[in-house]
């Protein structure tokens, strides 16, 4: 059993060749242009991905038939330095609106040079999702996020 007080965290970072304002804008307003195409919850690739900019903005996918599946909300909106999103996707890869079951993702943008920004991502409180230890089973679930290992291998090459 995971201790209820344990904060389960995953951290990643990337340095991008752009000033901090551009990096923030691409991450948020242009979210749909870079988000990996295979990362969706519906059975079919979504017609549209949206990250509504601003506090309380919704983060969701919309299928061609208009069905929406929410991923979370903008919890903190501090352009161009900081962004916190809630992650309301359960271990079963379905939307779980209970705020007690949501983890959160903080993204910090720090100038690393005149045309360079360090982007640090922290996905934390993952243990709030019931059954979070099973989250990796999404690799194979039909409506989940298949092929991630493939793309990871490509990215790591």
């Amino acid at each position, binding site marked *: 059993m995971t201790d209820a007080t344990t904060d389960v965290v995953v951290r990643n970072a*990337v340095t991008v060749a752009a000033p901090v304002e551009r990096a923030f804008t691409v991450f948020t307003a242009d979210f749909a242009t870079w988000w990996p195409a295979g990362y969706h919850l519906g059975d079919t690739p979504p017609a549209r991905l949206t990250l509504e900019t601003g506090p309380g903005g919704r983060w969701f996918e919309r299928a061609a038939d208009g069905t929406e599946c929410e991923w979370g909300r903008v919890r903190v909106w501090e352009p161009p330095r900081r962004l916190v999103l809630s992650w309301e996707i359960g271990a079963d890869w379905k939307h779980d609106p209970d705020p007690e079951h949501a983890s959160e993702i903080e993204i910090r943008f720090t100038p690393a040079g005149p045309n360079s920004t360090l982007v640090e*991502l922290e996905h934390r409180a993952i243990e709030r999702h019931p059954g979070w230890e099973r989250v990796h089973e999404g690799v194979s679930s039909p409506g989940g996020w298949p092929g991630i290992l493939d793309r990871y*291998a490509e990215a790591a090459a």
Partner: protein
Amino acid sequence: MVSLNLRFVATYGATALAALGDPTRQAIVELLATGPRAVGDIAAELPVSRPAVSQHLKVLKDAGLVVDRPVGTRRLYQLDPAGADAARAFLDRFWSTALDAFRREVDRQEKERT
């Protein structure tokens, strides 16, 4: 970009991530994600010998990604259903891939602007 994960590796699930750094082990994990299998089943589906599969399974088992259980005369391997390290490794790969895609989009837009 493996280098992106250095901070992660230093802090969390280093063994699980290292175990997944090998393409054959990634292929084995993908196979096991579709259901439990014996060593012979895996060797039949991948261009890898039985002894090599056994060796890879040992690494995955030590990393807490895979568990095994005897079924009759066979031993079946499956992804650890309660594998906290596996979940962490999964989410780390997830964000690593997403951030890499983000970096490429920034590059593309910056090129267009110049």
